[in-house]
């Protein structure tokens, strides 16, 4: 669906994206992660046609973004990180405007308002919406024309727990319906829960790209935390299970001391992310 080859974007002397190569398959939920300033938004802006790259080639569904932007526009939706609505218009009027511009039937508006649970507030001016409602309206707006590829830039920020669940389910449903979702988020739990594949970016460079499970398997560090009593004093110690000395020390404590608590520490995707990006930034 998306093919990025040697993409480079520079702002004066600062290289925001450096020789990025990426391939996103059709019908997958792709997580695009990185710390602040890693070049994620810049990459998305290039993919939207809002920014011209200094070098490299980007193809979306076979269309070259530099040559066939108009064709790409109709198959792409972009849920940006800021809610950009006409606040003096109602939610329904905002969606109707975009529906007309996309050339889709007006009854689609009601369908998406219902799907994002906004029907009751449809005729209220957007000025009166909460941040979460604005975000949901934005998502509805960008899905009106049933795009094949949707860019989500932090879609669950400012949403309550129910809305987060709704949006995550929506993203999975979109993928099930055949769309490709390109997700940028700082919520690692979300990435682990819903993404098919993940790319981690740091300082404009791609670090790794794989499934969340593969990331965890490859980078997991096994720790064991022990709590034991010795002469009435409670001690706590952590052991790295991949180190022989630590393993031996742990065995001795378990054999000799009165252990109150022994448990292995779970290695999460967030730890992988911190480990990988931390190496770059330290």
């Amino acid at each position, binding site marked *: 669906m998306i093919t990025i080859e040697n993409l480079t974007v520079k702002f004066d002397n600062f290289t925001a994206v450096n020789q990025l190569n990426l391939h996103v398959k059709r019908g997958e939920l792709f997580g695009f992660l990185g710390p602040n300033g890693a070049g994620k938004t810049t990459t998305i802006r290039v993919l*939207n046609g809002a920014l011209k790259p200094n070098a490299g080639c980007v193809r979306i569904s076979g269309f070259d973004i530099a040559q066939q932007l*108009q064709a790409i*526009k109709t198959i792409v939706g*972009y849920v940006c990180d*800021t809610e950009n609505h006409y606040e*003096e218009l109602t939610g329904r009027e905002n969606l109707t405007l975009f529906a007309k511009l996309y050339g889709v039937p007006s009854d689609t508006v009601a369908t998406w308002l219902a799907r994002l649970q906004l029907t009751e507030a449809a005729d209220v001016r957007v000025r009166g919406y909460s941040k979460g409602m604005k975000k949901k309206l934005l998502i509805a*707006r960008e899905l009106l024309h049933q795009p094949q590829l949707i860019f989500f830039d932090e879609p669950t920020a400012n949403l309550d727990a129910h809305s987060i669940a709704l949006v995550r389910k929506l993203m999975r449903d979109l993928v099930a319906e055949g769309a490709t979702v390109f997700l940028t988020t700082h919520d690692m739990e979300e990435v682990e829960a819903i993404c098919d594949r993940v790319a981690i970016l740091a300082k404009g460079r791609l670090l790794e790209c794989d499934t969340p499970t593969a990331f965890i398997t490859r980078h997991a560090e096994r720790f064991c935390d022990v709590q034991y009593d010795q002469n009435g004093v409670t001690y706590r110690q952590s052991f790295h299970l991949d180190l022989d000395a630590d393993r031996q020390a742990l065995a001795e404590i378990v054999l000799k001391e009165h252990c109150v608590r022994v448990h292995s520490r779970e290695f999460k995707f967030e730890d992988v992310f911190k480990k990988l990006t931390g190496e770059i930034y330290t």
Partner: protein
Amino acid sequence: MSPRVARVFTLYQKEWMRIKRNPAALMAVGLIILMAFLVNIENKARKQEKIQESQPCALVFSTEDSFIKHLKSLPESQKIRFIQTEQLVISSTLNYPANIRCVAEIYPEASVEQVMHRRIKFRMVGESPQLQQLSRWVIASFANFNAKVKLDFSISAMQNNTPTKTLGNIDLSTSGSKAIVGAMLLFSAQYFLCFALFISFSAHERERGILQALALTATSAGELLLSKILFHLSLSWVASMIIMQTLSPYNIWAFPANLLANGVVILSSLGLISVAAIITSLNRTQTSASLVGFCYLMLMGVIFALAPKFIAFNAIRTFMFEGHAILLFTVILDNFSKPNMVKAGGALIFLLWQPVLLLFIASIIWKKHGWHNP
């Protein structure tokens, strides 16, 4: 309807919807139309006042006086203004109403050594030709009315020191001055609708990323600009026609059917929209765009103020369509009076190409910078 036209029409409708939801944005134009209405009333009132003021005047002490009644019954009395006063001793320094050139002070009959006398004193400013007519008429009327009473009359100078009513230095009673004020009002309305409102609406959309969201639909940057041009042009045209008709309300189709008036309104509006589009495209925030727009207005004022005295500023003014538009508005509102016609021809030539060139530049800058998030 082709998809392109349909999209432009949708965006055009959107602009109207926004203004409908925020009608206070047009308050300034309402005030300008009200000012045009007041200028028109002032112009009419001043004209009438001037006609009255320039009439010969008869200063009388009692309207019940039989001679005064006789004078008023004569058909010529229509051209005389009768003013009643209770001040029996009248000096030459009496503050007469403005613009009176000659006056006949008609005193009551009085007995002097058992002979009835009537004293009439004629006063005039400079050499007034009205005096001859007035004195002949009053004396002849008196002779016809009562030949038995002795008539004493004298002629003396009059001090007329009441200044003419003015607005600044402009006397609103002339059509020329009304046209100048009208042209300023017209241009102010256009400045507000095509310049300030364009910057306010578009810079807000740009700063919030709405323009970029619109441009990421099938809509192109050119379609976005075109819809905005059509919207602001429509507003400006309607407001200009209302102001012109308010200033000259006698023929309702005088301006909408006037090709030159329409052309000048459209061209000057296009020029202002183009400058506003350039400013919006090159500024990151609504605040900075509005500030630059305000500075542009100030700069325009400085150039126009200094142009008569400095050649350099005069040269710059030649390349500013605003001056040409104001001159043409003045000529149109002054019913094509001859002294301005030659200048107007030159102004029209400049106005025909300057806004078009600006629009061309604006469309290039808009397509490059105007639509996307700064």
